[in-house]
């Protein structure tokens, strides 16, 4: 089951440059929340602060409080432990190219010490089914490499891989931006179903996608969160003029 995310007074820095200013958000469990905004507004930075991937950049710094479920992200959990509970899917599908489909999905489990062959088999199948990929690859799980699939399939493979470690939260950073409309549609369908078990935060450039997929939407601009509300409100009658300007295409 998914858990809620609470962000309080989050500030993020790259060296001396401040990328996020005082962000406060409450993400509801088992809902999909979309983050929109023009390029460079900080939405990707924000999402990477949620699973501490921001730290992998040299000279980066974070201040503030993030709680995922009951535990505190920045005080008291190791980054690797956290990342097992918060899965991430990236913009460009990045399956491990020299591993088979099976090994790709099992990677999270195996590399974290989980070895029971039968259990791993079950989890791999379950994850591939959850990401609507199983039927397409069930005959070549061990034979084909992760990189031999089409773009849309690769991304679903990455989703399966993220789901295999049974996270509570799934972060998606523009997951469909490199995909064709049909693959995009399949993944959006997927997000709809995944909501029941996971909490999903999705960063997207595509406003129509945010509108289709998410119950809540947050609008970021220049590192600040301008508005956070139900998606219908943001897209039919936003409270802030800047949100309206962005959503109607007057800038961005």
């Amino acid at each position: 089951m998914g858990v809620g995310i609470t962000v309080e007074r989050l500030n993020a820095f790259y060296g001396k440059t401040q990328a996020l200013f005082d962000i406060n958000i409450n993400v509801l469990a088992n809902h999909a929340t979309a983050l929109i905004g023009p390029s460079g507004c900080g939405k990707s930075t924000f999402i990477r602060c949620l699973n501490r991937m921001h730290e992998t950049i040299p000279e980066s710094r974070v201040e503030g409080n993030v709680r995922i479920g009951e535990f505190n992200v920045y005080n008291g959990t190791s980054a690797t432990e956290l990342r097992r509970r918060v899965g991430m899917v990236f913009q460009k599908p990045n399956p491990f190219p020299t591993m088979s489909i099976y090994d790709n999905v099992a990677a999270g489990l195996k590399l974290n010490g989980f070895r029971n062959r039968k259990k791993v088999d079950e989890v791999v199948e379950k994850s591939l089914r959850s990401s609507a990929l199983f039927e397409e690859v069930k005959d070549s799980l061990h034979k084909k490499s992760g990189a031999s699939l089409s773009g849309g399939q690769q991304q679903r493979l990455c989703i399966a891989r993220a789901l295999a470690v049974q996270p509570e939260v799934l972060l998606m950073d523009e997951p469909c931006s490199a995909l064709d409309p049909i693959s995009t549609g399949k993944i959006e369908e997927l997000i709809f179903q995944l909501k029941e078990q996971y909490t999903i935060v999705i960063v997207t450039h595509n406003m129509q996608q945010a509108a289709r997929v998410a119950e809540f939407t947050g609008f970021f601009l220049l590192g600040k969160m301008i508005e956070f509300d139900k998606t219908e409100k943001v897209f039919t009658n936003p409270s802030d003029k800047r949100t309206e300007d962005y959503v109607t295409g007057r800038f961005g």
Partner: protein
Amino acid sequence: MVRTRFQQQMEELREKLLRMGGMAELAVDRACQGYTERDLHRCQLVLENESLINAAEREIDELAFDILATQQPAAVDLRFILAVTKINADLERVGDQAVNIAERVMDMIELPSVDLPVDIARMATAVSAMVRRALESFVEGKAELAQAVLEMDHVVDRMRDEAFITLVRTMNEQPQNTQQALDALLVARNLERVADHATNISEDVIFWVLGADVRHHAGAANGPNNMTSVPAPRTESTGT
């Protein structure tokens, strides 16, 4: 982001609607003048120009549909287009009512003139003002103007009710003038309908400007953030 083509289309939509509004307003004025001055010619003009109003309705619907399909408008732009399609329908009905009035007047002119104790002319002026103000609120994008029209509707309703009572009494007391009285009564009813349509148009303008649904008298006309008007859509000149 500039979205030139989108701006052009929205501007075109706005202009088309305004032109149609002008035609509808003119039709009502002509029909009313035809009544007060017993002018056959004006009534005929109303009938002739009816087809133009209908053609405009089709054009506007088509353009709005096109923009919706190809431009994915959101927020205020989306509300604008929805409002335009509704106002469109109301304006076409206004045109129909003008035709009804004109036809009634043409009947009336055949009959001998009779002095009736109702001031249809005053009612016509009020209704005409409502239509004009509703269209103004659209042009300016001002919710207060639209709100004012909603309030005038009560006045017109009262006028119609009074006219009914008076004319029914006339028909009872002067049965020889029943036909003229009936004609006047029907014109009054048509005018009240026009007022209703003007009210609808105002409600649609409020929806567009504030995002508030005030139809059927639901809720005050004050949007979130106390925005009471929006700038008229994209009037940057784009050449032709």
